[in-house]
């Protein structure tokens, strides 16, 4: 048996390892190298410039703006999304009848489950286009059409620098909630009914059920959701590219690092600088993921 084991393992591992090295590791190594050149992508020639591209980032106002936006996204988006998703999935699963022996979601929960999950089925570009119409400042805009009719509009969702990022976050939350409703519902389904029923017999109301029973038993799933959403907060490129005015505007009010990379590389032909941004994003995401692993591990011990 032992003799056949290693060829067997190697045989299985070789293909994925080769694929991973060729398509993930090598491009990363090359990106690190390109980040230290002034390559412009239009000829094979380039010069080695050391860390100049990184030094230039320090003076790059838009880079700092993008970084700040990721900070806001990281703080707000996971919190809001998880909160809404928790409320919804609680309502869908245990929010209905509180009579012992009849634990169920609110009426029509099957229908709502589909509705909530709907945005998840749409491509992000489609969502961008849809919300372009929802936010449009003219009469044909969904919200402003109504507001204008009441003489209250228009609200410049995407054009007002104080509102634009929040509008983007609202779309991201709208799009994300469905997935987490499903995730949390799955988590709740595995919480034994008898715990709920015991609590109900002890006279717990819905709020107590939610905070004292559901939340603690779902804590692990929520942590996973937080990591996923945190990583999503470092992206947001597609929605900004489609929905924001003036390339991450107005005036850089919605820009994110992904968009800056795209602009530097594919519009301005500064591939070296763009790669430097990519390297920075790489380390940011890595740091975030590592930090979260640390923090959640400690909490798991406390539990």
């Amino acid at each position, binding site marked *: 048996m032992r003799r056949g084991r290693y060829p067997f393992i190697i045989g299985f591992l070789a293909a994925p390892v080769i694929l991973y090295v060729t398509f993930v590791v090598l*491009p990363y190594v090359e990106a690190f190298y390109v980040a230290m050149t002034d390559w412009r992508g*239009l000829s094979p020639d380039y010069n080695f410039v050391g860390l100049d591209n990184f030094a230039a980032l320090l003076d790059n106002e838009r880079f700092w703006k993008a970084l700040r936006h990721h900070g806001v996204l990281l703080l707000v988006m996971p919190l809001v999304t998880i909160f809404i998703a928790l409320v919804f999935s609680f309502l869908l699963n245990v929010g209905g009848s509180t009579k012992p022996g009849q634990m169920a979601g609110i009426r029509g929960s099957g229908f709502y489950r589909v509705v909530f999950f709907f945005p998840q089925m749409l491509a992000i570009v489609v969502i961008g286009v849809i919300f372009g119409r929802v936010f449009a400042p003219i009469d044909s805009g969904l919200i402003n059409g109504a507001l204008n009719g009441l003489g209250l509009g228009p609200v410049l969702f995407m054009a007002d620098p104080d509102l634009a990022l929040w509008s983007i976050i609202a779309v991201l939350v709208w799009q994300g909630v469905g997935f987490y409703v499903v995730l949390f519902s799955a988590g709740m389904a595995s919480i034994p009914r008898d715990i709920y029923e015991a609590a109900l017999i002890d006279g717990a109301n819905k709020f107590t059920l939610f905070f004292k029973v559901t939340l603690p038993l779902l804590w*692990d799933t929520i942590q996973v959701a937080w990591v996923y959403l945190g990583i999503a907060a470092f992206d947001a490129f597609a929605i900004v590219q489609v929905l924001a005015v003036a390339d991450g505007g107005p005036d850089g009010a919605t820009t994110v690092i992904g968009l800056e990379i795209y602009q530097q590389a594919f519009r301005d032909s500064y591939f070296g600088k763009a790669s430097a941004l990519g390297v920075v994003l790489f380390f940011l*995401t890595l740091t975030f993921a590592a930090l979260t692993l640390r923090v959640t591990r400690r909490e798991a011990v406390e539990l």
Partner: protein
Amino acid sequence: MSGTPDNPSTDAPSAVTRRTLLGRATVAGLLAVPSAGLLSACLGSSDDDKQDQAEGTKSAENPLGVKEDAPLEVVIFNGGLGTKYATDVHIPSYKAKFPKAEVKFSQTEEIATQLQPRFSSNTPPDMVNNAGSKLMDMGALVQAGQASDLTDLFEAPSLDIAGKKVKETLLPGAIEQGTFNGKPYVLNYAYTVYGLWYDAALFKNKGWAVPKTWAEFTALCDTIKAAGITPYGYAGANAAYYQYLVLLTSAAKIGGTDVLKNIDNLEDGAWTNDAVKKAAEAWAGIGAKYSDKAFLGQKHTEVQLQQNQGKVAFYPSGSWLENEQAKDTPATFKYAVKQLPSVGGSDKLPFTAIFAAPGEEYWAAAKGKNPRGAQEYLRHMLSKEGAKKFTELTKVMTVVKGATDGLTISPGFTSGAALATAAGENAFSYRWADWYKKLDDECRSATNELMFSGGTAEKFCERMQKAADAVKKDSSIQKFKR
């Protein structure tokens, strides 16, 4: 919280599950930055292998020395102009002259996506039409030595205008627009005039006269506003550059074309110049009183559509506008364009002066297999016949002087052509927006601030000057002079 065996959140296997999940999340995080890796995908061979280039002998009949049977590869951007002008006019013209040559034609909607790998591996096509939203940075291409010096082409005799060199058949500014640090590398073929576009039929109906002075302009705007129409609009979301273009046109009219030249050359204080300040002040007044803040969140197509619906009176744009809107323009709507009203009584340039720029880049790849054939192809484009047929197919003027005289295509085209004729030598343009993308970005934002978000002329000038100074100091940005 213990005991229940089917509770996955408390027993050991669940911890493993969670850790695996988190581990996967980390991997997902790593994959969330794929752009960094993709960027370098094309950085491969750096050996400088030049292709063998075809050369023929120069003669009176063949002034550029084209090898008559050498194949030629032409790539055309398929956008607003289509590709018919190439396949039906210019390629047949080339083949008529060199019947033994095979012309390989291809078209694309994304020039950079198609051609960037070919340039970075030194196997480019011969003639490239670099245009569209995914065009390659021309300055970077020139710097990388990818474009041929077109001096020979402009010195060669014209194909069908007897006794004249190619350069003598072109409108003023045509060669200059494609010149980088003293040498011509690019043929900017289409000639675009810019001004204020309006519906001539509507103005005639209402008895509104198109203003020549700023006082007339604001007075008319009051009248238009009273009629329930928004007097002036531009699209802040993606086309703020239409607005800074007219703003700087006004500045040039006030202070002369040197104002723009200084801006292009990143001279100290070029943006804080009095002429720029005065122009910004005048336009800020229009934005505050005669426009609508809602335009800030709209795209050019949306604002243009509102003009077609009679909701917006004046719209700043270039002569492609009529063609772009052809689908949405009601039959009663007659496009016309007018010069910008003079801001003060003592403007250096007359009312007829206009911003007019040759655009649409066509050039010969320096490292292609047949650069001479590519230049010859450009000479065919610049023939009177080639230019005229181009205009007939695309409704766009070319830089070839007088090629479209007497051609009646549409009201907007006639109006634009009249503007160009009236301007004569008083047609000017700038290059900074193409040379320094960063300044372009900054100016779009500064213009939106000035027009709609409570900015002042002072703030506008200072903000732009600061940005220009920063570009000037940044040694990683390639500089140009004119």
